[in-house]
C-alpha cells in the first residue's frame, strides 16, 4: 500500500506532463498554421494591391462616392424613375428568359447525363466514366469563355449567353443529380424491368417520381444562380439588363438615374426570386419528410 501511495503522485505527474506536452505541441502546430495563413494572406494582399490601379487606403474613402452620386442623381430626377423602370423592363425580361431557358435546357441535359452516369441506372454501364468526364468538362467551362467565343460566331444577343449558361448548368446540375440518384430506391426499377419496360420507361416511371422533389429544388437554386450569371454575361455583350447597364454606365455623369433604375430592377428581381424559391424549396424538402 505504501508502495502504491508513493507511486501515484508520480504517475499523475508524468501523465500531466505528457498531456501538457501534447497540448503545447498542438498549440504550436495550430499557431504555426495560423502564422502561415496570415503571412500568405497579408503577402497576397500586398501583391494584389501593388498590381492594382488604385491603392486600398486611397480607394476606401471613395467607395461610397459612386453609390451616393447615383442615389443623389436618382433622387434629383425621381420623376423620371418610373419611366426608366418601364423602359428597362423588357431588358430585364430578356435576362430572366435567358436564365429560365438555360436552366430548363441544362436541367433536361443534366438529368439525362446524371442517369447515364449513375451506377445501377446507367443505360451503358461501360461508358459511365465517359458521361462523368463529359459533365466535369461542361462544368469546368466558365460561362464567359463559351459566351465570348459564341458571340464572335453568332453575333451579340441572348442566344450565346443562353447556350453558355446551359452548358455550365448541365454539368453542375448533372453532378448534383447523380448524387440524388444514388439514393433512389431500385425496387421500382426492377419491377418495371420485370414487365419488360425500356430504359426510358424505367427511368421515367421508376426513378423520376422518387427524385423529382430534389431535382426541382436544385433546379430552382440553379435558376437563382443563372439570373446573376445572365446579368453578368449581358455586361460583356450578350444582351439583357447587363448590356443596358453597361450602356447606362458609359454615358457617365448626368445619366446615372438610368443606371439607378437598372440597379433597382436587378436588386428587386434577385431578392424576390430568392425569396420565393427558398420558400418553395423549403416546402419541397419538408413536405417530403412529413
Amino acid at each position, binding site marked *: 500500500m505504501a508502495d502504491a501511495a508513493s507511486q501515484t503522485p508520480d504517475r499523475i505527474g508524468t501523465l500531466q506532463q505528457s498531456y501538457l506536452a501534447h497540448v503545447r505541441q498542438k498549440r504550436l502546430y495550430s499557431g504555426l498554421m495560423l502564422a502561415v495563413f496570415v503571412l500568405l494572406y497579408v503577402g497576397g494582399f500586398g501583391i494584389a494591391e501593388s498590381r492594382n490601379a488604385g491603392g486600398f487606403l486611397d480607394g476606401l474613402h*471613395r467607395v461610397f462616392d459612386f453609390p451616393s452620386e447615383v442615389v443623389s442623381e436618382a433622387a434629383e430626377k425621381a420623376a423620371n424613375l418610373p419611366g426608366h423602370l418601364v423602359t428597362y423592363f423588357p431588358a430585364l425580361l430578356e435576362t430572366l428568359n435567358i436564365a429560365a431557358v438555360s436552366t430548363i435546357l441544362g436541367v433536361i441535359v443534366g438529368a439525362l447525363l446524371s442517369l447515364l452516369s449513375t451506377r445501377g441506372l446507367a443505360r451503358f454501364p461501360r461508358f459511365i466514366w465517359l458521361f462523368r468526364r463529359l459533365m466535369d468538362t461542361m462544368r469546368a467551362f466558365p460561362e464567359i469563355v463559351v459566351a465570348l467565343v459564341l458571340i464572335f460566331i453568332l453575333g451579340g444577343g441572348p442566344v450565346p449567353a443562353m447556350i453558355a449558361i446551359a452548358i455550365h448548368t448541365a454539368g453542375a446540375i448533372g453532378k448534383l443529380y447523380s448524387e440524388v440518384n444514388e439514393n433512389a430506391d431500385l425496387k421500382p426499377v426492377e419491377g418495371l424491368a420485370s414487365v419488360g419496360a425500356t430504359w426510358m420507361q424505367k427511368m421515367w416511371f421508376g426513378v423520376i417520381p422518387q427524385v423529382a422533389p430534389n431535382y426541382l429544388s436544385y433546379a430552382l437554386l440553379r435558376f437563382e444562380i443563372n439570373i446573376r450569371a445572365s446579368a453578368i454575361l449581358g455586361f460583356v455583350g450578350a444582351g439583357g439588363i447587363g448590356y443596358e447597364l453597361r450602356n447606362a454606365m458609359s454615358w457617365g455623369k448626368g445619366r446615372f438615374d438610368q443606371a439607378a433604375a437598372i440597379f433597382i430592377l436587378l436588386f428587386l428581381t434577385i431578392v424576390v426570386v430568392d425569396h420565393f424559391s427558398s420558400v418553395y424549396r423549403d416546402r419541397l424538402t419538408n413536405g417530403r419528410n412529413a
Partner: protein
Amino acid sequence: MSDTAAHPISGEVTRDFGRKRRVALAVPVLLLAYFVYVFFAFDIPGLAQRASMENARVLVSDAYSYKTHVTRNNRSGELTVAVEGKRNHIYAPDRMPAWITASGETTEIALRHGHRVTYAPDAVIYHYPTIGDIRITNPDGTFLTEIPEGLPDGIVNATGARVSIGTNAGRLAVTRSKAETFRYFNGWELFFFTLDSPYRGHSAFEILFGPQIDVARGNWAGAAQDFWGNTLWRHKDVAWAMFETILMAFLGTFGAAMVALPLAFLAARNFTPLMSVRFAARRVFDFVRGVDALIWTIVLARAFGPGPMTGALAILVTDTGSFGKIFSEALENVDDKQIEGIRSTGARPMQRYRFGVIPQVTPVLLSQILYFFESNARSATVIGAITGGGIGLMLTQAINTQQDWEQVTWYIVLILIMVVVMDTLSGWLRAKVIKGGEDPLL
C-alpha cells in the same frame, strides 16, 4: 359497381388521378408554349443571317494552325517572311526557312502537296502539280493570267488589278504593289521561342545537354529567359494573370469568411437573444447578397480602379452575404451540451465560444469555404473580365482582336486546367477536413 363509385375514397382517388393527369399534360404543353415564345423573343429565325460560318471557320483553323506570309514588294523587290503577317515576327534574311530558296532576283516557295510558287522578276508563277503552271504577268498595268487546261473551277479569281489563287496547299495574292503567298502549318507558331531567339529550331535535348548555343548566356538560363520573355505568347504575363486569378479567389473567399464569422454569431438565434440585432444582421446579409456580384464589381472598380485587388474585394463583399447566411445556420445547429459542459467549469463567454462552439462548426465551415474557393476560381475569371485583371482580362483582349484564336485556345486550356486542379484539390481537402462526414452538396 355504383356503390363503390359512391365511396368517398374512390371519389378522392379519381379526383387525384384526374388532377395528376391534367398536370402531366399541362406541364409539357406549357413548356412547349414557353419555348415557342422564346423562339420568337430571341429572334432565332434571324440567327441564321447574323451567324457567320466564315468566323467559325477562321476560329477553328486558327486554333490549330497558322500561316506564314511570304511577301515581295513589287517596287523595291524586297522579300519579307513574316509569321501571321506580324511586323515584329519577321525572319532574318540570313535565317530563312528551308522551304524558301532565293537565288538572285528569283524566289522559290515550296507549298504543301508539291505545289510551288515562283517570284520571277517579270512574272509570278504558281506550279499546280500534274496540271501545269498558272502564269501571272503584268506587261502594261493590267494583269494577264495564263490558266492551264483542266484546272478546277474556283481556284483563280482574277480582275485587272488583283489576282488571287486559293488551293488546299496555300494561297497566293498578287496586286500591283506586292505578291503575297500564304503557307499554312499545323500547330501554334513560335510557342517556345520567337524568331529572334538563337534557341529557335533546336530540340529540347540539344538545349539541355548540347553545346552552348549563345556565346553570351548558358543554355539553360538563356532558353528560360527567351521562353519567359516570348513577345508573342507573353508567358510571363500569362503566368502572372493565372496567379492573379487564383489570388483573387483566395483573398476574396478567406477574407469573406473572416468578416462573416463574427457577424454570423450576431445573426444566430442561440447566440444573440436580442431580436433587433439578429434582424439587422440578417438584413445586412440579404442586402449584400441581393446587390449581386456584378453591381459590387462595378461600384468597387470605380473606387479602386482595375486590378486584382478590386476583384478580390468584389468576391469578398459578395461572399460575405452568402457565408453569413450559411454560417449562422450552422451556428444555430450546434449542440448545446458541449457549451453547457464548458460553462460548468466556469468559463467566460469567449472561452465558451472558443472551446464549445468553434470545434463543432469548424469542419462544416471549412468545407463550405473550400467549396466557395473552388467555385470562386471560376468567378474570378469573369470578374477579371469586368474589372480588368487576371486571365479574364487577357482572354477578353485576345478575343476582341478576333484573330489570335491560338492564344484564346491556350488561355481556355489554362483556365480549364486551373478549374480542374482547384476542384481536385478542394475535394481532397474537404474529404480530409470532414473525415468520413458527408460532403455537403451546396
